[in-house]
């Protein structure tokens, strides 16, 4: 009797595909998102609320903060608000990594013949898609701050938002991967990410910052996201870096963050996986 055990062969095992599993993990992130109505509402309403409340509050308190010529502060703040929205959506979608781990879903992915890079790619692209869409929704308000975008500038804005989203989602993935509680995740976010945003040129420009803060801002990758957006949205304003420098730095940052997430996910430990 020919049993199955007679046919074990190593040649039968082909290369594990990366795109099919990455696609399906991405698809799941999107489906889960729109099946949770409160998340959908939050994505649409929060950017509007955030910008109107904070922007107008600051606008009247510090009229012409003086950062960018004669710009109104509400205008100056617009790229920073966009970055903040993308930052929070990107990072927080990766809380799903912790939830997947707790619920046991992640285990079934880890025992499947899926390259770890596909897990990173699928989940990160899922979060990136959601954050990019949210950033784009916020772009609807651009005409209100007097921005007129041509097609090429618009595409570059989308590219910038995509790069920032991807890099931050990958960073969120790398932070979330070894964690077992969402509380710990929140603590890390508050510790690092809010200062990261504050010192990205979102609230005040690099050129007006004091010496050591300026150094930190120059080392902060998010600064280049804010700068790229500001250059694209307000071509007339003077900026600290050229668009090429900003986009180049962002690309490097994105690759580095994906690499970091990839390293985290490949640590095969002798500790329990769940």
């Amino acid at each position, binding site marked *: 009797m020919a*049993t*199955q*055990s*007679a046919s*074990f*062969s*190593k040649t039968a*095992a082909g290369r*594990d*595909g990366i795109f*099919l*599993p990455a*696609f*399906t993990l991405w*698809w*799941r992130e999107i*489906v*889960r998102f729109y*099946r*949770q109505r409160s998340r959908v509402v939050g994505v649409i309403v929060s950017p509007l609320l955030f910008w109107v409340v904070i922007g107008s509050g600051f606008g009247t308190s510090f009229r012409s903060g003086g950062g960018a010529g004669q710009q109104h502060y509400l205008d100056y703040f617009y790229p920073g608000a966009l970055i903040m929205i993308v930052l929070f959506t990107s990072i927080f979608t990766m809380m799903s990594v912790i939830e997947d781990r707790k*619920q*046991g*879903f992640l*285990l*079934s*992915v*880890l*025992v*499947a*013949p*899926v*390259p770890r890079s596909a897990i990173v790619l699928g989940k990160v692209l899922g979060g990136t898609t959601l954050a990019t869409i949210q950033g784009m929704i916020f772009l609807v308000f651009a005409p209100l701050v007097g921005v007129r975008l041509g097609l090429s500038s618009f595409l570059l804005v989308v590219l910038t938002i995509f790069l920032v989203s991807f890099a931050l989602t990958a960073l969120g993935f790398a932070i979330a991967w070894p964690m077992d509680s969402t509380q710990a995740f929140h603590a890390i976010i508050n510790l690092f990410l809010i200062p990261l945003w504050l010192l990205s040129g979102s609230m005040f420009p690099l050129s007006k910052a004091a010496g050591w803060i300026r150094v930190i801002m120059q080392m902060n990758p998010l600064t280049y996201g804010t700068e790229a957006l500001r250059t694209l949205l307000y071509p007339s304003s003077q900026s600290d870096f050229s668009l090429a420098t900003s986009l180049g730095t962002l690309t490097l940052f994105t690759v580095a963050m994906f690499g970091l997430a990839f390293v985290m996910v490949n640590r*095969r*430990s*002798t*500790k*329990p*996986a*769940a």
Partner: protein
Amino acid sequence: MAYPTTVIHRPESQAEVSVPAVISVQNIVHRYENRTALDGVSFDVRNAELFGLLGPNGSGKTTLFRILSTLMVPTSGHAVILGFDSAKDPSALRRHIGVVFQAQSNDGKLTAYENLWHQGHLYGLHGAALKARIGEILSRVGLSDRANEKVETFSGGMQRRIELAKGLLHHPSVLLLDEPTTGLDPGARRDLWQYLAILRDQEKVSVIVTTHLMEEAERCDRLAILNEGKLMALGTPADLKREIGGDVVLLEARDPEALAEQVRSRFGMEATVMGQQVRLEIESGHRFVTDVVEAFPGEIQALSVSKPTLEDVFIRRTGHRFWSEEKPEA
């Protein structure tokens, strides 16, 4: 280190040589930071066998399960499944094994069909072939009519059946299940075990189940009994019970230590004290009972005679109860 690639371990009698081992667990040791979870465990699992890993919580069976399912690398030793070393060649092995975890791995926000669709993609299945396979497996587990409902609305038993369908979607020849009946009612438990037997008989799948329930262990073809990281017994449930021989007699006494001592000196037999009870293994227990009651009038408050169970096997091998309260913290 030269290690044979096609390991067919033949540790036992000559009669078994013709049956290749599907799983070969070779002297596995696993240490967590300050605790040894597995301490040199070895055994084989044969093709189309329903194999049980029985042990109390903390016996190391979940650790072993994680090693077999490629989630963890053992500190030393090897787990070779279908010729693949689970530590060295995990991605090749993963194609051939199905894994059902104790915790729910379904996504409740997705429908039954979507969960399986997602799972199929992870195993490289797609398109019409995947669709046909999902239809097939859903009817096998009796959930065709619920295919388009969200899994979070399902009962525990139905969710478990979806888990099983996920594990079997890619036609694995080895199925690993970690405490699969946790949280199921008796009816759902029975259904699951019947289905595992069908898989073994009709599709020749080798099924490895961890459990801490004696009545489930009874249903396995063969068992490995684990305790504190060591293999205490290996064999069919019937063989394991047969080695006890005769009956098990339990005597309840106010002073069990004294009673045990008296039984030892009077009858010259081994007597162990467990809590308030003295435990004896003896041929023809029913006759011995009258002797012992007459020998120590008034000292025995209650007694029972029973055929040996797997718990008795466990007690004999480990010297303590399956659910011992005074187990020292390692």
